[in-house]
């Protein structure tokens, strides 16, 4: 007979998981507990062991799909009826044709002996009380039912996040038809309702923002180091998108002869003052950015849509995009603006080592104000980096290459780097963005220019 395996709640109270890969194909014979799939929840990547021994007849979901808990994901042809071995165990209870407890710890709602969630028989006022045999007559409280207070229609069934969404959108849940299990109103129901109904524009925009959360990742061609959003990152991304999807990116490029900076780097490394520090081009680019930022503070700001305010930071938490075993993260250096070059160097080293070890703390990942991404380490020259959500600018530093370049009116082999800057055009005009990038370029082309800037 055919048996279905429904996606269970793999953590505590999770509602969905993403199928990462199937380890079996249709037609495969699998043993009990053989790993059949790898899935990622908001909490962990886990392997799914087969609940049956049998032959796979259908895989209902493709890898990369996010599946709701309770949806069938795979079907098996199981010999006989004993996919679940019964030998040795207590006899199955006849009444309860039990399904796995799919979400959280609660009982499964189905037609067994449970009264849970069934509407009480309010409608016809319940028969008067006197027929009930009092248990302890002496203390029996008066059980007279007050005239049934206007039979409270049951609140439309939904979940707190959905009620919140509906409230935010100004949607009356009573007007929405639920399509979820047992008439449960889902987020989609609310969004669809908004889509079809006549609602204030603001509400529409908000609904659009919510919806965008699920589609925005489908434009990878703009992104250089884009990885599929899943699990924790998907949650994070959804939160980010809801606030950042409106940030219009503008990008600019500047190619600079950084030979003087590389020479400075060599001198600093050789000098005693920086003994024991790990100075790299990134250290100097970071410092140049911090100096240039003082002259163009609008690149260190945030668009606060909720309050309709622009938040100008008077400090810099400098984010550094880092490739880690778990994907791209952007930990930031707190108060980088007040650091000396040595301190900045030490902070960068600590940050990258922590990231590389996969030990970056959530605190280090939040609160960034502007970021640098070092795409040069991959041998790349330029790109249009995507803003770390909530930030106004991100600088991508390209590879340092020896190239024929104009030098003192002649062509010489010089060390050249391309800088790419993306900024939020709501906050930053082309003028500020251009001046900022030009300042960084000027410092790297001639570190002495700092004297003219600070």
């Amino acid at each position: 007979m055919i048996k279905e395996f429904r996606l269970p709640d793999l953590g505590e109270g999770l509602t969905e998981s993403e199928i990462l890969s199937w380890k079996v194909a249709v037609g495969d014979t699998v043993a009990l507990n053989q790993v059949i799939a790898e899935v990622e929840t908001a909490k962990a990547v886990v392997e799914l062991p087969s609940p049956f021994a049998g032959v796979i007849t259908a895989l209902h979901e493709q890898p990369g799909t996010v599946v709701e808990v309770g949806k069938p994901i795979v079907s098996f042809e199981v010999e006989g009826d004993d996919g679940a071995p019964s030998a040795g165990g207590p006899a199955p209870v006849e009444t309860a044709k039990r399904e796995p407890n799919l979400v959280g710890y609660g009982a499964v709602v189905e037609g067994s002996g449970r009264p849970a969630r069934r509407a009480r028989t309010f409608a016809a006022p319940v028969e008067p009380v006197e027929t009930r045999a009092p248990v302890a007559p002496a203390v029996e409280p008066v059980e007279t039912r007050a005239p049934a207070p206007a039979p409270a229609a049951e609140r439309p069934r939904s979940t707190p996040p959905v009620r919140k969404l509906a409230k935010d959108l100004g949607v009356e849940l009573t007007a929405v038809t639920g399509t979820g299990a047992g008439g449960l109103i889902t987020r989609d129901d609310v969004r669809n309702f908004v889509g079809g109904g006549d609602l204030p524009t603001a509400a529409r925009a908000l609904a659009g923002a919510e919806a965008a959360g699920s589609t925005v990742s489908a434009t990878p061609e703009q992104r250089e180091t884009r990885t599929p959003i899943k699990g924790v990152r998907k949650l994070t991304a959804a939160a980010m998108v809801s606030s950042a999807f409106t940030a219009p990116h503008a990008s600019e490029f500047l190619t600079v002869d950084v030979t003087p900076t590389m020479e400075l780097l060599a001198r600093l490394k050789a000098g005693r003052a920086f003994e024991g520090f790990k100075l790299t081009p990134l250290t100097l680019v970071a410092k140049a950015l911090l100096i240039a930022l003082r002259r163009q503070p609008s690149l260190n700001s945030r668009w606060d849509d909720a309050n309709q305010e622009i938040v100008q930071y008077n400090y810099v938490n400098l984010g550094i995009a880092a490739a880690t075993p778990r994907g791209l993260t952007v930990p930031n250096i707190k108060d980088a603006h007040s650091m000396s070059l040595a301190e900045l160097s030490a902070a960068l080293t600590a940050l990258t080592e922590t990231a590389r070890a996969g030990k970056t703390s959530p605190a280090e990942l939040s609160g960034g104000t502007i970021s640098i991404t070092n795409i040069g380490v991959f041998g790349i020259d330029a790109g249009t980096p995507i803003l770390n959500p909530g930030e106004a600018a991100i600088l991508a530093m390209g590879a340092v290459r020896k190239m024929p370049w104009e030098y003192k009116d002649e062509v010489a082999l010089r060390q050249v780097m391309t800088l790419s800057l993306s900024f939020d055009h709501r906050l930053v005009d082309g003028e500020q963005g251009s001046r900022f990038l030009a300042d960084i370029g000027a410092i790297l082309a001639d570190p002495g220019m700092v004297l003219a800037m600070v």
Partner: protein
Amino acid sequence: MFTDELGQGGNVTDGPDNSAGHHGGARENLVQLITPGGERVSHPQYDAWVRDVSDEQLGSLYEDLVVIRRIDTEATALQRQGELGLWPPLLGQEAAQIGSARALRDDDFVFSSYRENGVAYCRGVDLSDILKVWRGNASAGWDPYTVNMATPQIIIGAQTLHATGYAMGIQNDGADSVAITYFGDGATSEGDVNEAMVFAASFQSPVIFFCQNNHWAISEPVRLQSHIRIADRAAGFGIPGIRVDGNDVLAVMAATREALERARHGGGPTFIEAVTYRMGPHTTADDPTRYRDANELEDWAAKDPIARIKGLLERKGLLTEQLEARVAAKADAVAREVRAGCINMPDPQPLDIFKHVYSTPNSWLDRQEDHYSRYLASFGDPAGANSEEGAR
């Protein structure tokens, strides 16, 4: 070309570790009777405590280790299949649990945390009773007095107080049984554990504090919680502390037997730190790859408790096909029993909630039960009527 920022500095040194992070070092004072390679090494003090362990018993210990690992993997699979809400795997801690539990007498009493399912197996707890709570079918799985093991304590370290209290009761009874309480490295940071040790020391109660130092309190490494070896904390309470290789079933057994003997003869409490490693996640809802180094897991896999006793049996020529077949058959049977017991577990009924509130009849509770059954009946559903019927 740039230096890769993430690749710079190949000469990275990790921060200073507490001693718990270093194993096999010269300072190590770890009691070990079987090396990770399976070699029996002699120990001047602890050899005597396991001298009587026969070849056959070694085989049984091996079987126990394999069986409880199998119970654990089966339960983990059941969680992944939606049959259990949650499960706290014991993977890697088998020897610590078996070595200590098999040293106990039937009249000793166990107060454990939620991870000692191997201990519960040794005490004879019905396999499906172990799973009840994790399936959400009951608030507690079994009657503690039938197996002399309290149901698992979820609150970190609270069971140590229960154990000390019970041990003080043993003293009042003038009996020679012992209370043993199991907890982890993280629990030693809790007030309860410290209070329990203060009382145990003051009253010289017959209680064993058995700490499985599995190195991780969920995501908190032990070195952040204890700047000294955990066993060394015991001295501060005036309790003898011993540090034993928790992946060495014989060493654990020897240390536990010594502590039991001390307790039975009025010698008071003992603190045992069994140094082991949680090879799996904290629970099935946890992802350890987010906070710990894969290399660490590899290091500990090389000290696996089962591979170790298997190695010893092999060296002694005891690892026969017969034994292997017997152990495999037992593990398979137990796994089947776990699965069947879980899947076929009857659902609790609404009125079951009144069952274990008081040990003796209580008129107020009866009254509430009556009210509740009539409430259920008010749904006007034949199934509700069934529930009422079940109430009487």
